[in-house]
C-alpha cells in the first residue's frame, strides 16, 4: 500500500463517472480532503452527491481519473487490501441500509465484529453509544419495528462505533427533528476534533449556515468549493422552526465516555 504525505485522506484527480453508456454525471472532479477537515457536500437533488460519496467509500469505481484514499491509489490497490481501507471509513447511508434481521445492537456491533473486536468490548461500546443516541430501550429491536428517525440513529451509531478516520454521511439528519439533528452534529464535531475527517451531504441550509464549515458544491456534475454562507444562500431555503438548542450539555458526559 502506498502512502503519500499521511495527512491527505481523500484525493480526487480529474475523476469522471458515468453509469453504463449514459452521460457523465460527475465530470473532472478534483479535490483533496485533509485529515481533520469538516465539509458539507451540497447540491440539488440528482446533482450526484450520493454517487460522489459512493466513489469515496469504494462502492463504485470511477469511469476515469484517479482516486486516492489514505494515500492508497484505489486503481492499483489489490482487492485483498480494500477491507482495511473501508474499516477506516464510517458511512451513514441515505437509505440507512440496516440489516433487518439483526437487532439494533447487532447492527451497530457489525463494524467491530468485522474488525475482530472482543465481544465484551463490543457490548460495552455499543450499549453506551445506543444509549447516547436515545435508543437504550431499543437495543433488541429490529429495524422494521423502529421509526425512520430511530433507524437513522442506528445507522449513525453503526458509522461511528469503530471511530473511523473518515466519516461520510448522506443526509444524516433527514428523518429526525432539528433538536436531535443538532445533537448528532455535535457528535460529528466531537469526532472531528479527535481528527476524523467529515463529509456530510445535506439539503439543510440552516445546518450549513449554523455549523460554518466549507462546502463542496456539486452543480451539473462539476464540483466547486464554497464558503458556508454562499453555499447556504444557493440551497433551497427550508423554514427555520427555531429548534436549534437542545439540552446537549446534559448529554455531554455520556458522549465523552463514548469518545
Amino acid at each position, binding site marked *: 500500500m502506498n502512502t503519500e504525505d499521511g495527512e491527505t485522506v481523500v484525493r480526487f484527480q480529474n475523476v469522471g463517472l458515468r453509469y453504463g453508456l449514459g452521460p457523465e454525471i460527475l465530470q473532472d472532479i478534483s479535490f483533496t480532503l485533509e485529515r481533520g477537515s469538516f465539509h458539507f457536500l451540497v447540491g440539488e437533488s440528482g446533482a450526484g452527491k450520493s454517487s460522489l460519496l459512493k466513489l469515496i*467509500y469504494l462502492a*463504485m469505481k470511477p469511469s476515469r481519473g484517479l482516486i486516492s484514499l489514505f494515500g492508497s491509489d484505489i486503481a492499483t490497490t489489490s482487492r*485483498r487490501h480494500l*477491507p482495511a481501507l473501508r474499516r477506516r471509513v464510517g*458511512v451513514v447511508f441515505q437509505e440507512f441500509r440496516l*440489516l433487518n*434481521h439483526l437487532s439494533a445492537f447487532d447492527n451497530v456491533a*457489525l463494524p467491530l465484529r468485522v474488525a475482530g473486536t472482543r465481544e465484551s468490548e463490543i457490548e460495552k461500546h455499543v450499549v453506551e453509544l445506543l444509549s447516547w443516541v436515545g435508543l437504550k430501550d431499543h437495543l433488541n429491536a429490529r429495524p422494521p419495528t423502529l421509526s425512520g428517525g430511530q433507524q437513522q440513529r442506528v445507522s449513525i451509531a453503526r458509522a461511528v462505533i469503530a471511530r473511523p478516520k473518515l466519516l461520510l454521511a448522506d443526509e444524516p439528519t433527514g428523518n429526525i427533528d432539528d433538536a436531535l439533528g443538532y445533537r448528532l452534529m455535535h457528535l460529528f464535531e466531537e469526532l472531528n476534533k479527535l481528527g476524523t475527517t467529515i463529509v456530510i451531504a445535506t439539503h439543510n441550509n440552516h445546518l450549513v449556515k449554523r455549523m460554518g464549515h466549507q462546502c463542496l458544491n456539486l452543480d451539473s456534475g462539476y464540483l466547486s468549493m464554497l464558503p458556508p454562507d454562499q453555499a447556504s444562500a444557493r440551497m433551497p431555503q427550508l423554514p427555520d422552526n427555531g429548534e436549534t438548542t437542545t439540552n446537549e450539555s446534559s448529554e455531554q458526559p455520556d458522549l465523552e465516555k463514548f469518545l
Partner: protein
Amino acid sequence: MFSRRSDLPLDRDEQSRFLSWLIAFMVFLAVLAMAGLLVLNSIAGRWDQGVRGTLTVQIAPANDPVKDDVRLRAAVAVLASTPEVERYEAMSETRLLRLLEPWLGTLVEAGDLPLPQLIDVELKPESTIDLAVLTQQLLAKVPGASIDDHGIWLERLVRLIVTVEGVATAILAFIGFATVGTVVFTTRTGLAIHKEAIEVLHLIGAQDSYIARQFAGRALSLGLRGGLMGLVLAVPTVFGIGYLAGRMENMLIPEFALLPIYWAALAALPVAVALLAMLTARFTVMRTLGRML
C-alpha cells in the same frame, strides 16, 4: 473456517432445508454403496484366502465301486508322493451331496446319481507346484482324472467383484459430485438472495473470508444434520440386507458381515459429506465475491 454466529439470515432460506434433505438422501445412498463395497472387498479377500493354495482332484466315476476305490487309492498315492502337498482328503459321498444340495435339493441320496470322486488338496504354504507335471503323473496312474486349481472360478469371481466395486465407487463419486453441485447452487442462490446484506458487510470492511465463514458454517451444520439423518436411515437398511443375506448364507453367499472398522468408516461418511459441503460453500463464496469490487 466457519462461524456459529451469522450476520446473514441464512437459516431462513428455503433452499437450506432442501439442502439438508438432499444431503440426507445422498448420505443414505453413499452408506449403502460403501457398505456394499466394503462387504464385497471382505468377501473377495476371504474367498481368495480360502481358495489360494488349494486344489481339487476330480476322478470320473467308473460305475464300479471296486474300480472307483482302486482309482482313488492310486490318485492318493500320487498326491502322497508329491512333496508340495501338505494335506489331502477324499470327500465322502455325503459331503458331496451336501455341496450339491443348492442345485439338487435334499431328496437325492447316495447312489442315485453317478458322482465323481473328489480329493481336497492343500498345498504347503509358499510352495509352487507345476500343475502340468502333477496332472501328467495323475493321468498316468488314473486315466480321466483332472485337477482344478479354482483359477478360472476365482478369476471370474474376482472380475465380477471388481466390476461391482467399480460401480459402487462410481456411485460414491457421483454422490460426491452431486453434493458439490447442489452446495454450489444453493450457495450461489444464497449469495444472490443476501446480496444487499453482503454489500453492506463489504462496505463496513468485511473480508471475503468473513462472509465465506458464515456460508461455510451453515453448510457444515446442514451437512451434519442431513448426514446424520441419512445415516440413521441407512443403518437399519444395511442390517436388513445383512439379515436377508445371512438367511442365504448356507446356500451361495458367504457370510455378510462388516468389521467394526468398516462400521466406523460408514459412521464417518456424514462427517466427510458435511466437510465437503463446508469446503465447497467456502470455495464458492470466495470465488464469487472475488469477482466483485
